[in-house]
């Protein structure tokens, strides 16, 4: 049986999190969502290591998305990372770029999001 890609989603805005999960599941992924890295890792459990994609908002309640993604990648080393932010300054973009992660502004056009998923899922395969 073919295994669906696993995406770890870090997002603390309810509307964005719910809408994003629908789009990601429609695309064909399993999604584990949480408000921070511990939350996601705890829900995903042993499955964390098979995650191939991490999508995170930059401004999380107690941390930033780049730090959270780095924390998760220790347990999911194959995962490609996408950082999203509605931030008014360029701090999020700079932090994502310096970590080697992809950055997109919110609101991100869904077709850009899907195109990025297609490219990066192919990379992992």
């Amino acid at each position, binding site marked *: 049986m073919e295994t669906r890609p696993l995406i770890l989603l870090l997002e603390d805005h309810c509307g964005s999190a719910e809408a994003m999960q629908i789009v990601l599941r429609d695309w064909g992924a399993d999604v584990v969502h949480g408000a921070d890295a511990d939350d996601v890792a705890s829900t995903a459990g042993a499955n964390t290591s098979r995650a191939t994609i991490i999508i995170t908002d930059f401004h999380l309640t107690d941390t930033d998305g780049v730090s959270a993604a780095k924390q998760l990648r220790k347990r999911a080393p194959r995962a490609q990372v996408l950082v999203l932010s509605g931030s008014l300054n360029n701090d999020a973009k700079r932090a994502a*770029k310096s970590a080697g992660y992809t950055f997109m502004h*919110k609101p991100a056009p869904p077709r850009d999001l899907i195109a990025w998923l297609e490219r990066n899922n192919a990379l992992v395969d």
Partner: protein
Amino acid sequence: MDSESVKTRFLTAIGHDMRQPLHALLLYLSALERRVHDAEARDVLSKADRAAQSLAGMIEGLIQLARLDAGKIDPELERVSLQSLFDDLLARVPHASAEATPLYVHSDPVLLETIMQQLISNAATHGGGKAHVSAIEKNGAVQIEVRDDGPGIAPEDQERIFAEFVRADGSSGNGLGVGLTIAKGLAELMKHTIEVRSAPGKGATFVVRAERA
């Protein structure tokens, strides 16, 4: 507080608070589009999606303009590979092509990318849809060029198009007419220059001139 400060604070606040629900709205519309198979309903959804994306672009433009007006953008200049910049742009922008280049410039990579996105977006909207990006060295500086094959810009409009809320064609179509204002403002912050070369019927070439690194 003067009226300019009030305007800046207002635009910044609404811009930030509007982004999250707008992000969710675009995703919900995309999810809905997958579930609707009736052609007429899909057409309506497609129009709703375009309207939401247009609104998103306008909010983005207003935020950038407000931050420029408020002097809240501090460039961090470094040695920037134009090839890396072009590669990043092409990966995200479907209607652009680029020539390979070995050149580097002294610039802020984030702000320079924003300038290029504005110029490419301008070419897509007003310049016939396609943008071609290239770079050459001239008189010790580097010229980054964004060329389109659109209707061109009349000589009397070539300075005016960089002003706020101005479109050369006078249309009231997509956008607020702030993209080129933002590109010019960001370029000036980094001591770059930006100009347009064009003639009616012969397309337009926007040129960003930066110090070679």
